């Protein structure tokens, strides 16, 4: 119990550090005023007020009133206060669910996130399901026929799959299944769950196949190693069938590496989702982040980044817990 509390405290510390990093980056590298008010801030208001600049429109502002807006914004958003305090306020807002407002349509960022996040989660979930469903039976079959034709071909295939970037794979799949054979829709269709899932099949495959290749390699190697352990010989001596041995003795210890990678791979999963959403035009969180990045829509960028990074930390934490549960030897130490 104490251990759990300590790890939770660690978790909170990391999350705070992560969000602080993002906030600081946005507000020091970018212009904090810009983050809040947008393009208007390009105007040099002091000069305008002093009458030195007549033509405001060339500066990006439209009326003198914009300078008033800027001054008010400085006040309202506490931009004159030191960074740590601004961070504190921002976290406070965050906890209350207020992520700021998007520059684009003045929609609250939280609305954007709430709309986009579920689709990304569905995509990533489907991808992992595909990956596990593909890799586990494949690895078992290959480990069973270790070093024979099927296994060698699989190893080469998996290696090749990992060399293909996911956007390339996405483009190839898109070309064949959408453009050429027109089996799947070309845009994301949202009308009902079935259509949603159908739209996500290709993107989930694109995301999931490289994962499957990684899981396959790990699981196969671990299975082969485990199958050579003495306790497997002992199990055979007990007259247990090969199927029993594989599923009841060899599989569980061999899953450890795969489970560890499960968590580590979340980074690749999220990054991959960004790209896959782009290729297949899925309106998910990743796409929102990219679009916002290009548009310099900082509130959205910050909000999305924070959600993604925090989620990632939490997932790793959960994986750690799961790992210590799976391996009773580790359990004692943790």
């Amino acid at each position, binding site marked *: 119990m104490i251990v759990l509390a300590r790890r939770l405290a660690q978790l909170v510390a990391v999350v705070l550090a992560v969000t602080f990093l993002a906030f600081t980056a946005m507000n020091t590298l970018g212009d904090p005023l810009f983050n809040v008010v947008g393009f208007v801030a390009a105007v040099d208001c002091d000069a305008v007020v002093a009458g030195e600049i007549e033509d405001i429109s060339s500066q990006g502002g439209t009326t003198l009133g914009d300078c008033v807006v800027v001054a008010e914004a400085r006040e309202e958003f506490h931009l004159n206060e030191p960074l740590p305090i601004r961070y504190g306020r921002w976290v406070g807002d965050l906890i209350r669910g207020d992520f700021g407002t998007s520059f684009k349509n003045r929609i609250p960022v939280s609305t954007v996130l709430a709309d986009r996040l579920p689709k990304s989660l569905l995509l990533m979930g489907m991808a992992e399901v595909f990956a596990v469903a593909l890799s586990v039976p494949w690895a078992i079959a290959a480990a069973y026929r270790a070093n024979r034709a099927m296994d060698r071909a699989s190893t080469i295939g998996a290696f090749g799959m990992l060399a293909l970037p996911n956007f390339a794979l996405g483009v190839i799949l898109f070309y064949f299944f959408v453009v050429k054979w027109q089996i799947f829709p070309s845009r994301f269709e949202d009308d009902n769950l079935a259509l949603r899932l159908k739209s996500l099949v290709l993107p989930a495959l694109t995301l999931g196949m490289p994962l499957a290749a990684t899981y396959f390699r790990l699981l196969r190697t671990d299975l082969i190693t485990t199958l050579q352990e003495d306790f497997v010989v002992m*199990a055979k001596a007990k007259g247990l069938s090969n199927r029993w041995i594989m599923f009841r003795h060899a599989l569980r210890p061999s899953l450890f590496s795969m489970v560890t990678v499960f968590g580590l791979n979340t980074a690749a999963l999220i990054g991959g989702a960004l790209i896959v959403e782009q290729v297949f035009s899925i309106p998910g969180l990743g796409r929102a982040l990219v679009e916002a990045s290009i548009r310099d829509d900082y509130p959205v960028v910050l909000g999305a980044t924070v959600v993604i990074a925090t989620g990632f930390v939490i997932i790793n934490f959960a994986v750690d817990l799961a790992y210590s549960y799976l391996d009773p030897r580790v359990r004692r130490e943790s």
Partner: protein
Amino acid sequence: MATPLLSVTDLQVGFATERGLLRAVDGVSFDLAEGQTLGIVGESGSGKSVTAKTLMNLLPSYARVEGSVMFDGRDVRAMAAERERHFWGVEMTMVFQDPMTSLNPVKKVGEQIAESLRVHLKRSRREARDDAGDLLQQVGIPEPKKRLTQYPHELSGGLRQRVVIAMALACSPRLLIADEPTTALDVTVQKHILDLLDELREERGMAMILITHDLGVVKGRADQIMVMYAGRTMEQADTATLFSEMRHPYTEALLETIPRVDMASHSRLVPIPGSPPDAVDLGQGCPFAERCRYCSASCLIDQPSLEQHRQGHACACHAPVGTDAGAAAHAANHETGVTPAGLDMGTFATAVGEKT
């Protein structure tokens, strides 16, 4: 004589390797009656473990086996081909050397014992668990109920080996093969385990094959002994005969490596000089010739066959200990100071009884 429980005839096991055919077992034969113990003695590489694995159908697929193995009149090798699953683990079981690696580290001990009961005897989960608890008690483990839910790494070496024995006994086998069951354990624990095996064997009327490199281990515990070297049987006899009338030089040498209480203090133990031969490239002649102090010229070119010296005592040697041929060869070597194989007789100095 009634049909022996286990009858092995001219067993040969070879492995196809890159360098050629490795003859791990070359013409081994023995009979084992119900309730009896056979001790198989030899150094590492002598083929004793491979013999055991052959009986248990644990050989890898690139092994080539010939000869016959009959258990209670049934052809064991044919069973392997047909995948008869309720033979091994039920009628014939095995205990291995290292209990730590024989047990699945991530499975509870109780589960591992109960497995055989559920798979072979179709017991229910609960029945199997109860039986497992009983078994743990029979092998002398204190607090058996508690142990059922523990993991292997939570037990000491001696307890683990008892667990492995319990696992092997679960389905009341008629034959138990113990391959160096105590080698990985502390010396103090070794005796307990061997005694335990003896007890259990008697209680259950079980036959046993005890494999070891230590003649001392089988002395009081086996009914007959087979000494193996380089995959071949060197000497085979019932225990009393073997110790009182040993004939093979290798057997004699093995005996001399065991320290005894009645030795003069500071006497040197005589190790067997040299090392086991390369099993792929055995050459002609007796495989032990290079290390044998009774070696004669014919030993190097002519492989001795296993001959019945008397009823129940066989030996494969040209110049056995205690025969005229043997004494002559020994004397000749003693005079020249070196054997025909080039072995310096000085290495055999200062053993008990001043033999050289």
